[in-house]
């Protein structure tokens, strides 16, 4: 590329940056390039016939409970069996006295016994375009509240940048946009594109750049009140922050982590959470089920038979056989390779082709809501330390205490924490937090860690699909094997999101309903 001339494509990329990816997203939606999660299928399942109405649901997470609920509504006789001690799968809210069933490291949550002191150890935020989550929360009367996921007063912290001092995200973003806008202004002003802009468009771009970065009339970024006042601004004259060195901004890596995170639709404001804890969604399903979920029941074998499906499971030291007409299975695929079955070869190969994902979280009870004294009322601080993030609760503002997320490790970064004892994890997170909030350690009263890759009957969180596995096996695993359906967020394009689990359950139910209707039609003719 000629350095004097920007191509039109580069220019459009710059404009994209200027308009924000929200604008790009809207355009993409309109062009059909990107889907939201699509309308919720209004479940109109054919009412169960007298025969053939026994359903086995394996796993009592979001997907399993959804299938159980919908099929009970249609009159089916549903049995739900769950391997772990509790119902809910990875939808887990920890409160006073709850047990964290980690392999070899059983923990008890030692938060105070107060309704506002809880930690969502699994799913913790709901964007409004996750229409199935929203649908079931509405249908089952689960109250939601807005959860602040992004906060300008929260911090950027980089051990190798800004002298290791935390910097307000708002200040970072204001300066970064100022510099980007200045570049855009210069490029448009000189009109050095391979196809020059019309005078009219050029004028508009100059205006856009000026507004985007808060530039001065000459297109120069001189700082902005958007970065926050350094002092004054109300009854005293305002003093602004001085403009940061652009190379230092570039040198820090916040621009590839938190900078654009809320422009991902799944993390875009406003997000929501269930009032009082995400597991209220689970409780609502349980309230609305006739069947009682059988916990501590571990599947030993699954066999399609000529006219049904048999599930063998162990419960309290005894073996049982459940004969059903249909089976909906949300057992993690990485366990299915070690559960005897008579599935077809391609189906078994598909199950064996997937790898478990992983996440790790720490929840810390703080004796005071010290972040509120720093003007923070929710959102996320981003750090390049292994804890990666600190989340501040936006619920119960001004309460005495609060629970923050003290670490959030993604995928293979989780192993670092898994190999520590629970006490070591809390101590490590405390040290990291101290670098951002002086006194952080002393505020910590209680802590709990959740390594999903080490949780009993989970050994992972979400599913990693390679591109090859997706091409070769996704459609196959979505389709039933005999009378057996694999379900769960693992059988979706949105693994480790509740919406993925709901969507997978819906997909399976609609396929199931078509089969039942087709069978009924054949029977009538016969």
């Amino acid at each position, binding site marked *: 590329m000629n350095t004097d001339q920007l191509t039109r494509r580069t220019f459009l990329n710059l404009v994209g940056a200027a308009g924000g990816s929200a604008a790009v997203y809207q355009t993409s939606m309109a062009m059909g390039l990107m889907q939201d999660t699509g309308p919720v299928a209004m479940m109109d399942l054919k009412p169960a016939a007298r025969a053939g109405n026994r359903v086995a649901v394996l796993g009592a997470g979001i997907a399993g409970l959804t299938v159980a609920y919908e099929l009970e509504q249609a009159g089916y006789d549903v049995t739900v069996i769950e391997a772990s001690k509790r119902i809910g799968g990875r939808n887990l809210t920890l409160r006073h006295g709850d047990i964290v069933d980690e392999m070899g490291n059983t923990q008890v949550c030692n938060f105070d016994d107060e309704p506002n002191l809880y930690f969502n150890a699994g799913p913790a935020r709901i964007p409004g375009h996750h229409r199935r989550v929203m649908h079931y929360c509405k249908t089952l009367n689960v109250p939601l509240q807005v959860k602040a996921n992004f906060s300008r007063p929260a911090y950027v912290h980089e051990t190798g940048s800004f002298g290791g001092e935390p910097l307000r995200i708002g200040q970072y973003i204001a300066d970064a946009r100022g510099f980007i806008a200045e570049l855009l202004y210069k490029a448009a002003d000189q009109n050095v594109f391979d196809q020059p802009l019309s005078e009219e468009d050029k004028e508009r771009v100059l205006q856009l750049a000026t507004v985007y970065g808060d530039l001065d009339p000459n297109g120069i970024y001189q700082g902005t009140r958007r970065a926050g006042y350094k002092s004054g601004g109300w009854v005293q004259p305002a003093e602004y922050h001085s403009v940061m060195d652009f190379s230092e901004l570039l040198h820090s890596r916040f621009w590839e982590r938190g900078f654009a995170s809320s422009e991902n639709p799944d993390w875009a404001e406003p997000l929501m959470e269930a009032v009082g804890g995400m597991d209220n969604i689970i409780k609502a399903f349980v309230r609305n089920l006739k069947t009682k979920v059988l916990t501590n029941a571990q599947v030993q074998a699954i066999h399609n038979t000529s006219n049904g499906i048999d599930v063998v499971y162990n419960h309290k030291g005894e073996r049982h056989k459940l004969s059903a007409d249909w089976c909906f299975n949300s057992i993690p695929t990485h366990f299915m390779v*070690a559960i005897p079955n008579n599935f077809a070869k391609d189906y078994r190969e598909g199950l064996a082709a997937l790898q478990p994902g992983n996440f790790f979280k720490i929840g810390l009870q703080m004796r005071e809501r010290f972040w509120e004294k720093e003007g923070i009322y929710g959102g996320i601080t981003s750090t390049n330390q292994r804890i990666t993030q600190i989340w501040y609760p936006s619920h119960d503002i001004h309460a005495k205490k609060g629970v923050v997320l003290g670490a959030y490790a993604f995928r293979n970064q989780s192993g670092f924490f898994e190999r520590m004892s629970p006490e070591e994890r809390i101590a490590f997170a405390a040290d990291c937090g101290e670098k951002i909030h002086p006194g952080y350690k002393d505020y910590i009263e209680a802590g709990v860690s959740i390594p999903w890759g080490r949780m009993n009957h989970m050994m992972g969180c979400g599913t990693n699909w390679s591109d090859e596995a997706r091409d070769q096996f996704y459609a196959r695993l979505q389709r039933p094997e005999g009378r057996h359906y694999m379900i769960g967020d693992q059988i979706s394009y949105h693994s480790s999101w509740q919406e993925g689990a709901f969507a997978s359950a819906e997909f399976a139910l609609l396929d199931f309903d078509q089969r039942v209707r087709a069978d009924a039609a054949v029977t009538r003719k016969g």
Partner: protein
Amino acid sequence: MRTGLFLLLFAICPLAVAAEPDESLPVPADEFVYCTVCHGVQLMGNPIIKAPRLSGMDTWYVERQLMAFKNGWRGAHESDEVGMEMNPMAAVLSDEQIREAAEFVSKTRSPLPPVTVDGNVENGRARYMACAACHGIDGKGNAALGGPALTGQNDWYLVTQMENYRDGIRGSHPADVYGMQMRSAVQLLSDDQDIRDVVSYINTLNTNQGN
């Protein structure tokens, strides 16, 4: 027509047989369900979790390895990420629980594991002669000499463990006498290919129905 009937029978027969649970298989006590989470139903092994097959393993060897994990002789090396996953599981077991766990392990049964290693069997046979002293000509182990059975084990696991011995990840702790012996023994294998060849030969010793 005949082909159709054959296919139909073929499709139905195995199902009818498999649908009935085998009452002779042990059911783990609640405290040992943990073992089956990673090692699978009847401890058949889970290659995705990298948990080896333990079905029918001799009690003395299971006890010794649980003690090795509990004492940090195994699974303590910083490169042994999978072994480290086992440490906390063994650390919480009492001596009595270790005996009970080994008892449960020895009673489990599962089909023989699939062959996944493709080495030179002839070279492996020649190399195996040195192994046979402790592990037996038939690979079924020798309790008196402390050599565990190698048959019935996942071949990928045998490869990993021999590499771990070779690289000092296993068998380096001075208190791990048998592990130290094995670490010396594995030096007789000159390279990765030798290891794969020996394992391929061990695969040929898997002639029974599993255990």
